[in-house]
């Protein structure tokens, strides 16, 4: 019997191209996802050095970050700099023979939504993208991580990356999640506990019964925010849930090749007795719905809690950080989170813009009306998610309740398109970052689950979803 290995170690070892002495390991990259924002300078680099894209068949591109989310807006992009960036991607993909899912494609969407739904993302792969939320794909048992533009160019040219081997960190979430507590709450709880630099230099493996019970959408939500805990990547062992999700998808293997693939993928989960550099166990039964109150994803608290008092913090630098965050967020210590009124709601993003997220939000919204002082928008993660939601009638539920139903893209998660907060506006958002100005200069972001966001839209302030009255049954 060989040495027991972790999921991460198995994937890593299958991708080692070279291990030059005294240098980082050269690992092979099975798939690179490309979008308009972090790629223009990389393609330009290839042109300047006369290099080609080594493996166009292992590269796909889409437009997501700065595409407008209204039909008119997409037909005539007013922002000329954004339009140029999109046109540049189009030109680069044509020149370098890379498949592009363009604005008008039925497959267009946020890179981290379309990779899985097209069956391009698969267990055991190495996946990179010039986007820190690439960790999403780890939900399939892939090693997936975000890179900078120089590295994008490196992968385009060589299909490899020099990488120092990260440390391993297993977080086991054991037990049954209480009603109203979601995958988003699991990851917010983890970041709140270990901090935004709690997993720096590590690849996290999420394990335990609560993780195994999650759908693929839920697992993607958890892995997506690994970066918010500082991790290089997050991974979850592939299992029957993974295979059931992948089977029959456009780029999934078929027939005998499918059987062969599943056989290989079944070898990936961490062996009994394998060791991690760090371990943490979380009791799922103690988790609650969370809301972020500050300007860093680690600044979260249970919905039943109050805005913390910086004066209670001993460390001076930490206290200054808290004071600054509360000043930016215009919050007073001791305010119950449930009393915080909101102006905007954003349901979408690579964290929570998938079909299951929209179903969950629709279930809360059905039969209710969005508060008169709130503007709430739902932005599906992809064209396929949008089509599926419309087939299920979710768009009608949202529109009847007064939500704005939009076209797919990253939208107000980072506000690179026209969807931004006005200065001082407060938003309940299903996205992943509550940094200062993230959703628009002076905007104030509170991170929550899709259910909590939908409920906040209706109530006009945060509410404990566990006490929510579901008015109408929604059947898919």
């Amino acid at each position, binding site marked *: 019997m060989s040495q027991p290995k972790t999921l991460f170690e198995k994937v890593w070892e*299958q*991708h080692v*191209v*070279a291990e030059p002495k005294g*240098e980082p390991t*050269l690992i*092979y990259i099975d798939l690179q996802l490309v979008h308009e*924002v*972090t790629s223009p*300078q990389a393609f*330009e680099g290839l042109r300047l*050095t006369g290099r080609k894209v080594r493996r166009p068949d*292992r590269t*796909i591109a889409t437009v997501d*970050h700065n595409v407008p989310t209204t039909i008119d807006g997409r037909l005539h992009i007013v922002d000329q*700099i954004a339009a140029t*960036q999109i046109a*540049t991607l189009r030109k680069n993909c044509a020149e370098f023979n890379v*498949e592009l899912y363009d604005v008008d494609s039925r497959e267009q969407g946020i890179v981290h939504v379309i990779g899985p739904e097209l069956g*391009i993302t*698969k267990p*055991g*792969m190495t996946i990179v993208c*010039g986007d*820190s939320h690439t960790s999403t794909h780890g939900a399939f048992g892939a090693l997936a991580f*975000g*890179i*900078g*533009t*120089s590295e994008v160019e*490196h992968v385009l040219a*060589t299909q*490899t990356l*020099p990488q*120092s081997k990260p440390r391993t960190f297993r977080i086991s979430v054991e037990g049954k999640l209480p009603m109203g507590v979601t995958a988003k709450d699991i990851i917010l709880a983890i970041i709140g506990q270990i901090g*935004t*630099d709690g997993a*720096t*230099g590590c690849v996290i493996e999420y394990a335990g019964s609560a993780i195994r019970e999650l759908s693929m959408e839920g697992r993607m939500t958890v892995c997506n925010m690994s*970066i918010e805990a*500082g991790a290089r990547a997050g991974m979850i062992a592939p299992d029957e849930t993974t295979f059931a999700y992948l089977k029959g998808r456009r*780029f999934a*293997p078929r027939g005998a*090749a499918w059987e062969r*693939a599943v056989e290989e*993928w079944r070898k990936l989960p961490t062996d009994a007795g394998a060791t991690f550099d760090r371990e943490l166990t979380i009791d799922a039964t103690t988790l609650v719905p969370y809301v972020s109150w500050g300007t*860093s994803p680690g600044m979260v608290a249970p919905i039943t809690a109050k805005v913390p008092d910086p004066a209670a913090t001993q460390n001076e*630098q930490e206290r*200054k*950080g808290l004071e*600054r965050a509360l000043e930016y967020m215009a919050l007073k210590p001791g305010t119950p989170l449930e009393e915080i009124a909101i102006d905007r709601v954003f349901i979408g993003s690579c964290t929570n813009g998938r079909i299951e997220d929209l179903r969950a939000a629709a279930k809360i919204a059905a039969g209710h009306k969005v508060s008169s002082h709130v503007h709430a928008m739902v932005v599906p993660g992809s064209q396929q998610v949008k089509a599926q939601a419309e087939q299920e009638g979710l768009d009608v539920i949202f529109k009847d309740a007064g939500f704005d139903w939009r076209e797919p893209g990253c939208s107000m998660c980072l*506000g*690179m398109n026209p969807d931004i907060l006005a*200065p001082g506006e407060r938003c309940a958002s299903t996205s992943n*970052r509550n*940094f*200062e*100005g*993230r959703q628009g*200069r002076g905007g104030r972001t509170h991170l929550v689950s899709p259910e909590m966001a939908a409920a906040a839209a209706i109530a006009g302030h945060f509410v404990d979803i566990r006490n929510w009255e579901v008015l109408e049954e929604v059947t898919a």
Partner: protein
Amino acid sequence: MEPFKTLTSLAMPLDRTNVDTDQMIPKQFLKRIERTGYGDFLFFDWRQTPEGEPVKDFVLNDPRYEGAQILIAGKNFGCGSSREHAAWALSDFGFRCVIAPTFADIFFSNAGKNGIVLARLSEEQVAELMQKAQTTPGYTLTVSLESQTVTDGHGFSATFDVDPFRKFCLLEGLDDIGLTLRHAAELDAFEREHDEALWLKAK
């Protein structure tokens, strides 16, 4: 990439923790397709009021630190988005070294690829440098990559760790792709075999 040997420069204190890359270069500047010209937008929202007036008490606007090439900051510097534009903006503004207790992973890698040396010192050491840079007019530091030291010529001296290969690349100003292509034969052989693993095919 410009080689980095030894740098002596004014040190600018940015007394904040968890400085994320969204702050270093806000979203609206990521739409450009160039690699240069980001320096004017570095810490844009902290430097300028919404009306376009300079924020007087923000350190980048403080004439005492004009020309500083060394930035001192709190822990977890560079967290968040993978945007290399953050490193481009720092470099374009003139910074060649950042000193902090810890750095986020992706930023760490991006900085290295743009010739920026990131020196990790202890929280206590950083606090001392921060305080001196805030209170001593013309406070100057010398960062030597060769000896992996930070000194101020007035008794402060600290060493920092650097991965030997990263150090070599920074000292020589080497391009990564060229280095990788030394392994072209191994890559070709690996790829031929790896392509047989159909379950790892993208499409």
